[in-house]
């Protein structure tokens, strides 16, 4: 069986989540072939061999719409006769996956958090209700598409390098014209970050974010916030974490002056460790935390930053 894995990169570097997706496919078993859309350097793509890819198909060019990307993915599936398509969860993957599912008449599930169970048919565990529950879902079509959540499998580096082949497709004219872009502040992507430092209404005002940024910088972390904080424009909307914002899955999530409303928790409960800093010992966030400290953020945070600096 051939498995196609669509990989994404940012600034020429493959995303960790894409390597996880290749490792995931390798664990499912079969000939794993990666597909890269865009301009990732060949040398970088070749390193997917270590994660379990036997070959990488490389489609050069820019993809401004999911229609174009879906054509390329669907044709790649046909050319290698793939029954299974695996992608790491991202806004792009969801858009491409939906279109490919229609083209291929495939069964598609996203938010996958486990390897397939093939003892009786083909089913996978997925997270639902913003990670407040899980479901076991059976895929009932010959062709299947799995969109896999971050941290579902560990990245293994053991094989050699993979052959990179150019793959050409004739793409439809894009109806979507990109006219500009704006980079988010900070250089660590919230969705990709290993550590996230988030602040809530307890910080009282945007002028107090300096200490949050200092802590984040010391840890090499991305910064996030609760919804009221972005609603009041203390921080950009792109930092809003929760059920109606970004869902993060870092190794460490540090919540400062955030009460822990259920809608906020829905965006963070895939984190491996949660640290809560709050002056109210009754704050609900403590119940969802692994580590906590009751105290005034204005005292605790600068001290914590200094203590971590001292370690390094």
């Amino acid at each position, binding site marked *: 069986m051939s498995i196609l894995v669509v990989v994404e990169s940012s600034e020429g570097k493959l995303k960790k989540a894409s390597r996880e997706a290749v490792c995931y496919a390798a664990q499912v078993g079969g000939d794993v072939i990666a597909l890269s859309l865009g301009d990732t350097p060949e040398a970088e793509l070749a390193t997917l061999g270590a994660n379990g890819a036997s070959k990488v198909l490389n489609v050069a060019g820019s993809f401004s719409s999911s229609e174009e990307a879906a054509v390329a993915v669907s044709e790649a599936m046909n050319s290698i006769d793939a029954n299974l398509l695996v992608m790491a969860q991202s806004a792009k993957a969801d858009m491409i996956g939906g279109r490919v*599912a229609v083209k291929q008449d495939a069964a*598609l599930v996203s938010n996958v958090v486990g390897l397939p169970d093939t003892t009786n048919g083909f089913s996978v565990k997925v997270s639902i209700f913003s990670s407040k529950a899980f479901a*076991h879902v059976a895929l009932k079509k010959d062709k299947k598409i799995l969109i896999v959540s971050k941290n579902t499998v560990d990245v293994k580096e053991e094989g050699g390098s993979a052959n990179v082949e150019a793959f050409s497709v004739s793409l439809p004219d894009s109806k979507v014209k990109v006219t500009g872009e704006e980079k988010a502040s900070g250089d660590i992507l919230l969705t990709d970050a290993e550590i996230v430092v988030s602040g809530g209404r307890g910080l009282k005002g945007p002028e107090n974010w300096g200490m949050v940024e200092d802590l984040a910088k010391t840890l090499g972390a991305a910064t996030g916030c609760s919804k009221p904080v972005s609603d009041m424009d203390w921080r950009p909307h792109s930092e809003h974490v929760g059920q109606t914002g970004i869902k993060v899955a870092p190794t460490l999530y540090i919540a400062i002056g955030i009460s822990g409303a259920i809608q906020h928790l829905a965006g963070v409960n895939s984190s491996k460790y949660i640290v809560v800093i709050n002056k109210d010992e009754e704050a609900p966030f403590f119940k969802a935390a692994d580590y906590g*400290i009751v105290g005034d953020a204005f005292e605790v945070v600068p001290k914590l930053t200094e203590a971590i600096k001292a370690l390094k």
Partner: protein
Amino acid sequence: MKILVCITHVPDTTSRIAFTDGNTKFDSSGVQYIIGPYDDYAIARAVELKESNGASVTVLNVGGAETEPTIRKALAIGADDAVRVNAAPTDALFVAKQIANVAKNGGYDMILMGRESIDYNGGQVHAMVGELLGIPSLSPVMKLEVDGNAAKMSREVEGGKEFVEVAMPFVAGCQEPIAEWRIPNMRGIMTARTKPLNVVEPVATDEAVAYVKYEQPAPKAGVKMAHSVEELVDLLKNDAKVL
């Protein structure tokens, strides 16, 4: 301009999520249902466009009769009429086929949806509808302005946002800050009662996926409280081993 807004009927964001029948069914007892929060952005933007540019707004839900109070709420917010496809929404492709079937002869200039539903969080229905209708689909869209026969949008991409132009018709999955959530007022609630809500039967499709069994997450082991910053750093370094 004709706008179709697709809404979900989902448990309130504060609901306790539980299952019955040996973990094979969602336990809806005591659960309050709402319009999906992202769908609420879609409906709010549609009503804003109706006010600023002039438009008719139709809301659509694929669901059983129990969703009608949720649909009426969307009418109270300002939609003109509604369609309910009378079927339980079994999976994304099924829902997408129903929406595409309603939309294909409707002449809609845009189909607005939420970025994702908050029950199954698939985030796929828009792309599927776009593909089925052969039109662009964009998500998550944070800003949407109409400019002649096209729309100017900003969409979230990893690491920032992108500004795009798309000719109508298209599908867009909405998220904040595209519009302010709207709360129905008394007049809206009164007029919603008499606005048309058409019930149509679903088109047949085969089953792509089946939800076999549900599971609750394992409870957290319990929080370890630090009594000083030094103790917290020690826990992070030696217990979690993350520093």
